């Protein structure tokens, strides 16, 4: 379990990093927190010619609230976001999902950008971003471009990011009005990748009907899945058990899970149904408990 030899770059600025990527392109892999890449290197499942270590790019280590959005720099540690007061107090969807992402030791090293760009469909954060309707920002020497998750994720461990591009930011609109979120997952053990996970975000109109609903699924297909059918069902309706149950059925219908040694595809699909209902129920409780903002 020793990696093959590689060239090592440790740029100090984003510009330097993008210049290296422009030069090495396909031959380079980006090293952020290393929680997924380093095992792949050690097992020689990945044998890049070059590693671009972006841990020195302090300019990508930030969490900013701006114009009703939360913007998170790519090198921000997962643990930092988990402890961010706004997240802890008002965004239980994000807080729950981060708590389920590996263990504290992993989150101390693992980065937001690394997790999102690794594109493991069983991981929690891509599903959260989908539920929140967030977007990603890619940078290259040519400039920056925003990407919706639906455009970003292609299939297992594969994104539309160009080899010369670096994911620099993830951002999402902060929910308004009465809102509540929840993330529920089933994993064999605490801290494992989810067999299935469901993130939901509900925003309620003053009359108590659902103003916005976001539902993201992980472990339910080759990419994080946005349960659009269930979302559409919810909007404009008065929330309740029957509605949530039907939303679960619709979310399950959009899932495309596979079988592995931990769970069958049938199980995963049915758990999308169960967890969607349960997460909606919990999100509603939280919305009801939250102060009107």
């Amino acid at each position: 379990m020793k990696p093959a030899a590689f060239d090592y770059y440790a740029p100090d600025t984003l510009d330097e990093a993008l210049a290296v990527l422009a030069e090495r392109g396909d031959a380079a892999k980006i090293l952020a927190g290393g929680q997924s890449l380093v095992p792949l290197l050690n097992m020689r499942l990945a044998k890049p010619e070059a590693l671009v270590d972006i841990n020195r790019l302090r300019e990508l280590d930030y969490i900013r609230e701006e114009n009703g959005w939360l913007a998170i720099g790519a090198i921000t540690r997962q643990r930092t976001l988990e402890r961010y007061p706004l997240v802890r107090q008002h965004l239980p969807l994000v807080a729950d999902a981060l708590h389920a992402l590996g263990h504290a030791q992993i989150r101390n090293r693992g980065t937001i950008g690394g997790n999102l760009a690794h594109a493991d469909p069983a991981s929690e954060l891509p599903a959260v971003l989908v539920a929140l309707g967030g977007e990603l920002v890619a940078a290259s020497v040519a400039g920056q471009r925003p990407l919706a998750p639906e455009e970003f994720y292609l299939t297992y461990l594969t994104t539309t990011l160009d080899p010369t591009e670096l994911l620099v930011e993830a951002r999402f609109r902060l929910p308004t009005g009465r809102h509540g979120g929840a993330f529920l997952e089933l994993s064999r053990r605490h801290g494992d990748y989810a067999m299935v996970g469901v993130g939901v975000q509900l925003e309620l109109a003053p009359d108590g009907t659902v103003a916005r609903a976001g539902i993201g699924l992980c472990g339910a297909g080759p990419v994080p899945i946005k349960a659009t059918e269930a979302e559409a069902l919810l909007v404009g309706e008065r929330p309740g058990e029957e509605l949530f149950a039907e939303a679960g059925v619709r979310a399950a219908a959009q899932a495309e899970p596979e079988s592995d040694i931990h769970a069958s595809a049938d199980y995963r699909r049915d758990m999308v149904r169960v967890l969607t209902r349960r997460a909606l129920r919990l999100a509603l409780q939280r919305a009801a408990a939250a102060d009107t903002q």
Partner: protein
Amino acid sequence: MPKWIGQPIKRAEDPRLLTGQGTYVDDLRPLPVLYHAAILRSPHAHARIRSVNIERALAVPGVVGILTPQDVLEMSDPFPVGVETPVRYYATATDKVRFVGEPVCVVVAKDRYIAEDARELIEVDYEPLPAVVDPERAMAPDAPVLHEDIGHNIACHRSLRYGDPDAAFAEADVVVSQRQVFPKYSSTPMECYAVIAQFNPINGEYTIWSNFQGPFSLHPVTARALRTPENKLRFIVPPDIGGGFGIKSSMFPYIALIALAARKTGVPVKWVEDRLEHLAASSSNTDRVAYMEVALKRDGTILGMRQKLIDNVGAYIRAPDPGCLFRPLGNQVGPYRFQHLAVEAYAVHTNKSLTGPNRGYGCQHLYFNIERLLDKAADTLGLDPAELRRRNLIPGSAMPYTTPTGGIYDAGDYPATFEKLLELANYARLREEQARARAAGRLYGIGIALAVDPSVSNMGYVTIAFDRKLRQRPGYQAKSGAAETGTVMVDARGNVTCTINTCPEGQGHETTVAQLVAEEFGIPIENVRVVADFDSNSRAWSIATGTYSSRFAAAGASATLLAARRVKEKMRAIAAHLLEAAPDDVVLEDGVFFVKGQPDRNVTFRRVAGVAHWNPNALPPGIEPGLQNTSVWNFEHAVAPDDQDRVNSSQLYGFVGEIVAVEIDPETGEIQLQHYYSMHDAGRILNPLLVEGQIWGAVLHGMAGAMYEEMVYDENGAFLAGTFMDYLCPTAMEAPPLTIGHVEYPTPASLTGAKGVGESSSETAPAAIANAVADALKPLGIEITSLPITPSKVWALLREARARQATGGQP
């Protein structure tokens, strides 16, 4: 009142281990330069090796040499096996590869990076062959055959009969049967295998530094394969090993492999196994298919049992297997008093990785088999599972009790201990809770499992694998014994050094020995130093040496205590001489020898020690200078099997009783362990902290087999659990709420009164959890017959059951 024994003394090992200052194989620098090995392993489950080309790999700068299958054939012999079948098991594949991960070549280079680079350049031409992974399928006449020269896949088959099982079944009111499947899992110690090997061409001696845990009966097995006399194969073990659990008994093939690589390349070679290698190709317990049948009277009395056990030993059976089948033989009836038993035992070759001892060694299988069957029997008879067991336990008055299979249960009171377990768990209240839960439509279950927990295995049990006619032939050399050694030295200032040869893997042997010896001498525990490394060149050792079968507290500890007693007797004679008293009138208390009834006539322990070393001419006649003793502790009932296949396979028998309560989420199939009660008789408890740690670990190990860990293969022999993302060890997060209780029935068979406890709950947890889950699902007509039980599997069973109910019971 003992000052040290029985006290919760913190481990003497902890300061160094917790601060990262332990000395493991990887910390050793025994030679100025070491070269590093990378092992090329088979990607195929079953394939013929057409050719091996190492040219490109050899050309990599920094590569010293490569050991090939051809070298292994030329330089070594097959490891001796413990069965009559002539299995040709070498340190690498030779003609064919027979499981994914089987070693094929060893690259030796300046560092591990280069060795792994070069490994990728070795070209092996394989001709893939059909594979077989299921042991029953492997027994079929048309199954792919692993070893053509044997012609079939059965490595061992014995039919054992005790009493008159046919009559018992003919007499039965009820016969209950069940087919059961027990999974293949391991213990995944934190430290993987590690070997440093040096070959000296001048004197032909191999020196091996490794984290081998024993038994040293595997030393001659290794020597035979290396074609060397035993006294030219030197084993050195450092003071710290990062966990063993039986898995490190099975590393001897790698000792031979790295020794051969060192001999071939002419340089000392170091190999530290990585986790991928460990999961794919170190060791595990067997997976087992069992056909169990029990004959009962209507009142629940067990008349007899039939057990057909088919154990999957992987591609090559290796010593001490088929211990998987026979290690528990003396306790094959568990804590029950029935007299009639038939055991049909098979060890079968398949294209899976190799097997060996794994915490519980056969008992986790056996008690899953028996206890699962008894729950079904209780259900069939309409009896509470606790009541069925109560009616069949061996009474306390019968101790010591000889089982029909030859086990001699040394001490205990199973009915009394069982009642204590029921009290601890408040069993009646648990059943009330269950009734309430069921009335509310919840899935709540209670599982019981009982076990006679064997410790200190008798080397003789392995020969049960041989037909008894073979064992009766003239010239047959019987095997028996369970001896262990220990040395105590008192220096001139009265400080004590003990050397033990048990190759501890983190259990706290140094602490326990210090407690026993400080107690014996009446000196502060800080004055006792315990040296726990091992060197076969300089230590007293024997075939049974090592740590396995929960033997330390009875075997190694007794040997060391015996040595201390003998030194003490000598010191008493010296003290009596100095005090001008008769030795019988002199006693030792709190570090002072004095004449009984005259405490003023005294001499200190330290002064006596000083005289023994500094002034030998002042010693009484016949007393030699110095104070040291090496003693051996053996067990009188560790005898070879008799001509009826009866054997006292272990020397001490503890008792474990467990009650588990679970609740199952009817939608997700998740299993919540609500309560876990664990009652133990481990004999005299030497250190309750260490015992508690062992029980926690054993519960988690058993729970692992019940709910988490499995070495999964697909039907073509591909290994699907090759990383810790797929092979799931439970962590502290998954630990159940555990309540531990103790009774102490000290054993007369050891000097310490202690029985083993290291395996204990690992033998009962799979059965107890399975029984609890089965009980929870019983209202739906669901039977649990295989492990591990996962949420996905429970969900599938629930779905089938609901479909059955919806169609009025029709499938």
